[in-house]
Each structure stands twice: as structure tokens, then as C-alpha cells.
């Protein structure tokens, strides 16, 4: 096969929703949602709680099915896939759940190692990968603990480590920073930026916090001369094009664009202003 130009590749949609509707009983939760997440792009989803953000993420994973509309992953229409067919697609997606959703009968080690154990890999390889992932989220000390012994933030970080095992091309974050202290929240955002800029991971990032949007849409990661990862702010040198924001209201997308456009929209649209500034 011919080599794909990385710039061209970035134009491919990793996730695509086409006019998706979803009802729970009689309640319309998604009202004709269409959007795409390109390869290497981070899509930030904002919206009131109960607005259908987690629902969108579950649809991407095929955990629930839409009532109408199509959903494509890497150009592959997964809408009508059966559960066994979905299993193959899910191999390339990592998911960070709102509350961590750790298996509480398994230790931190076994939680993070879950996917690798399922693949039947030899234990030395598993251990190396698990330690690497736990170091990544700064939790190597907790390796032998049970989930019930961890704080909320630690559980979330173990959830992130578990989602990133096996280097998924797509990672879905469902409010990964909710209820965490600012430094931990910052660490998680840096992680997302690193995945986006250094590993070309596509992601959906659901959040309520303005600070996260600021980090994600104005900073980028590069490797400096010493080989270290450093974060730089966008400016004259570079304008970030791989992070977009989407606002959901009553099942519809009422805004979609870059952070600059969002700031502009906030001056004219009272709903967006209230959403961003609380009044």
C-alpha cells in the first residue's frame, strides 16, 4: 500500500455522526446530531448535565444504538453491528468513564492489565505495560491496591490508564476532571494534549470546566532538543487547528467551532455566555 501523507490522513474522519436521533422511552435525548471528529482531533463537548453527552459517547462505543441516523468509526458504518462485531471495533477505542467504572473485584494492577490479560499476553509484557501506564498517570505506588481503597481522583486516573493500554486510536473522556483538584485536572489535560499532538489520537472530551477548555484549545505539546515533552501556548508561531468545541442544548448542537469563535459567540448569544460565565 502507498504511504498516506500525514496531512491527508488527518482529514479522514475518525468518528462521524450523521443525523443521529435517540429516545429514552418518549424522551428525545439526541435530536438530529451530526458531527465529525477528524484523525488526531480533540472534540470538546459542553452541555448541561442530562444533555446527552454521555449518551453520545456510549453511541460511539456501540453500547447503545441510535433510533435513527448513522454512526461511522474510521469510515466503517457501525450502526447495525451486532455485539460480537462491535468487539473488534472497540479494540481501537479507549474509554474513560465518568466515575471511573473500575472493576471492584480486581486490583489496580488487574484493572489496568484487563485488556492485555484478555488477549492472553505473557505476564512479563503485561507487567511492563501496566507499570508504564500507571507511571503515566503517576500512580505506580497504588499498583496493589483495590479500587475501594482509592480516592475519586485516583480511581479516575486508574480508569485513564486502563483506557490507554494497547494504544487506542480513539479515546473518549467522559468528564475526566469532574471533582478533581486543579493540579490533577491539569495533569489529565496535559495527557490529552500529549496524546493528541504526539500520538495523533482522536478524542472526545466531555467537560464542564472552562479551565480545561483553555488548556486543551490553547496549548500544544512538542518534544524539545533534550527529548522532553514541553507544552507551549499557541500564538503567532502556531494556531491550533486540531481542537474544536461543541455545545449541546436539548439534544441539538447549538455551537461548533474553535475557542476563538466560542468567545465571539459568547458576546452575542446569551445562552452560551451564561454557559461559559455562569450568568
Amino acid at each position: 500500500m502507498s504511504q498516506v501523507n500525514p496531512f491527508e490522513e488527518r482529514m479522514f474522519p475518525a468518528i462521524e455522526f450523521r443525523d443521529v436521533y435517540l429516545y429514552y422511552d418518549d424522551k428525545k435525548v439526541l435530536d438530529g446530531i451530526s458531527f465529525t471528529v477528524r484523525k488526531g482531533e480533540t472534540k470538546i463537548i459542553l452541555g448541561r448535565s442530562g444533555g446527552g453527552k454521555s449518551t453520545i459517547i456510549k453511541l460511539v462505543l456501540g453500547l447503545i444504538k441510535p433510533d435513527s441516523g448513522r454512526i461511522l468509526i474510521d469510515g466503517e458504518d457501525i450502526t447495525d453491528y451486532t455485539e460480537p462485531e462491535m468487539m473488534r471495533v472497540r479494540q481501537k477505542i479507549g474509554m474513560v468513564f465518568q466515575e471511573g467504572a473500575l472493576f471492584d473485584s480486581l486490583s489496580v494492577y488487574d484493572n489496568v492489565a484487563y485488556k492485555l490479560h484478555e488477549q492472553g499476553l505473557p505476564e512479563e509484557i503485561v507487567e511492563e505495560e501496566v507499570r508504564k501506564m500507571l507511571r503515566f498517570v503517576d500512580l505506580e505506588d497504588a499498583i496493589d491496591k483495590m479500587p475501594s481503597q482509592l480516592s475519586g481522583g485516583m480511581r479516575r486516573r486508574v480508569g485513564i490508564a486502563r483506557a490507554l493500554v494497547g494504544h487506542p486510536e480513539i479515546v473518549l473522556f467522559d468528564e475526566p476532571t469532574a471533582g478533581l483538584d486543579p493540579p490533577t485536572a491539569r495533569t489529565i489535560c496535559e495527557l490529552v494534549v500529549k496524546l493528541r499532538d504526539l500520538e495523533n489520537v482522536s478524542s472526545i472530551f466531555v467537560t464542564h470546566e472552562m479551565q480545561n477548555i483553555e488548556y486543551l484549545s490553547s496549548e500544544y505539546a512538542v518534544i524539545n532538543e533534550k527529548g522532553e515533552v514541553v507544552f507551549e501556548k499557541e500564538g503567532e508561531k502556531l494556531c491550533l487547528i486540531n481542537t474544536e468545541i461543541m455545545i449541546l442544548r436539548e439534544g441539538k448542537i447549538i455551537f461548533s467551532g474553535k475557542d476563538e469563535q466560542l468567545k465571539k459567540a459568547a458576546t452575542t448569544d446569551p445562552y452560551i455566555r451564561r454557559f461559559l460565565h455562569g450568568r
Partner: protein
Amino acid sequence: MSFLQQGLYELQELTLLTFRAFYRLRKKPRYFREVIQQIDIIGVGSTPIILLTGFFTGAVLVLQSFQILAYYGAQSQVGRMVTFSLFRELGPVLAGLMVAGRIGSAITAELGSMVVSQQIDAMRALGTDPVKKLVAPRIIALLVALPLLTVVANVSGIIGGGITSKYIFNLDTTVFISSVLDAITTKNIIVTLVKPFFFGLIIGSVACYKGLGTTGGTVGVGISTTRSVVLSSIVIIIADFFLTRALQNILGIDF
């Protein structure tokens, strides 16, 4: 939806879940370790209560019926009577109901809390089929363990009956044992193994179905656990009637 429709719908979903659990086993992975682990939890874990309940059931059978048998001069047949009742009826049903209460409830509660804490979703997101990893091993373990537990209940009941007839009614032990051996026929053995096989299927399917269908947070877990135990107990007792009739037709109604 009317009550009947609801019932039929649940029956359909439950049956589908059970079929899926077996059907998907044709492809790897098959989770043998989980099966062994579940057999250990269900089988070994339930042995003490089965021993205890079996023992006293056998004992009370003798207590209740010895005098009636003696009235007809048939006290030497008390061992046969105990064995017959245990093998054909009380062993399977008793083990079934005890396991429905102890294991069925635990399975529903476990799967139910995994649902409400999104662990099932997480499992699916990580590419594991919960039907294969959680449902199939539990049903298979019950199919293996419940017949064995029934045998344990039978043996323990016979011992209980023997001790009662010896120490309360002064019946000679050899008389008791020889009448017990008379009753251990091929037909009785088939019945005592076939019934719990079906009861195990009922407990496993109902418990997993109710567990995976849990909604409404921790309160929901409590509700589905109760429903699981009630439903599987009722279905066991009803199924017992039809199984008995079917086995009578197949094996012949005589001893």
C-alpha cells in the same frame, strides 16, 4: 403492556440470553478459569448449608412418618421411604431452593451492581462480552454444581434419617441401610440428577437476566435481587411438577 405480555416478554428475553450464552461459546475465549472459580464458589461454598438442611430434612421425614409405617408394620421400610422422597423430590428441590436463595441472589446482586456502576459497560468497552465472561460461566457452573449438591443433600438426608430411626425409634442400622440400598435404583439416580440440572439452568438464567437488567441505582439492585430469588423459586417449584410428570412418562411410573 399487560401483565401477561410483560411475562412473555421477560420469558423471551431470558431464553434469548441463555441461548446466547451457549451459542457464543463456540468461539474463543471460553473463560474456563471463570467456570472453575464459579463451581468453587457455588459448589464448595454451598456445601455446608446443603449438608445441614439435607440432614434435618431426612431426620424430620423419619420423625413424621415412622409411626405411620409402623402402624402398617412397615417400619423396616423407613430407609426406602426416606431415600425415595429425597432422591425423587426433596433433594433436588431443597438444593434448588437453597441455591436460588444463596447463589441466585448473589449473582443478581453482583451483576446488578456491576450494571449500575457501569462496570458492565466498561467491560464491553474493553472488548469483552459479558455474556461470555459472566453469564456463561455462572450457568455452566450451576449445571455442574447443582446435581452434585443434590447428591450431597440426598446422602446427608439419609444419614439424618438413619440417625433418627436408630436413636429415636431404635431401628436396627442394618435394616435401615438395606432398605436404603433397595431404593437406590437407576431410575431414582436419573431423576435425582436430571431435575437439578434443569433447576440450575433456571437459577442461572433468571439470576443473570435479572442482574443484567437492573436499572435505578443501588435501590434497583435490591429490587432485582428479590425478584430474582422469588421468580427462580416459583419457577423451580412449577417446573418440578412438569419435570416429574415428564420423567414418569419417560422412565415409567413404577419404581
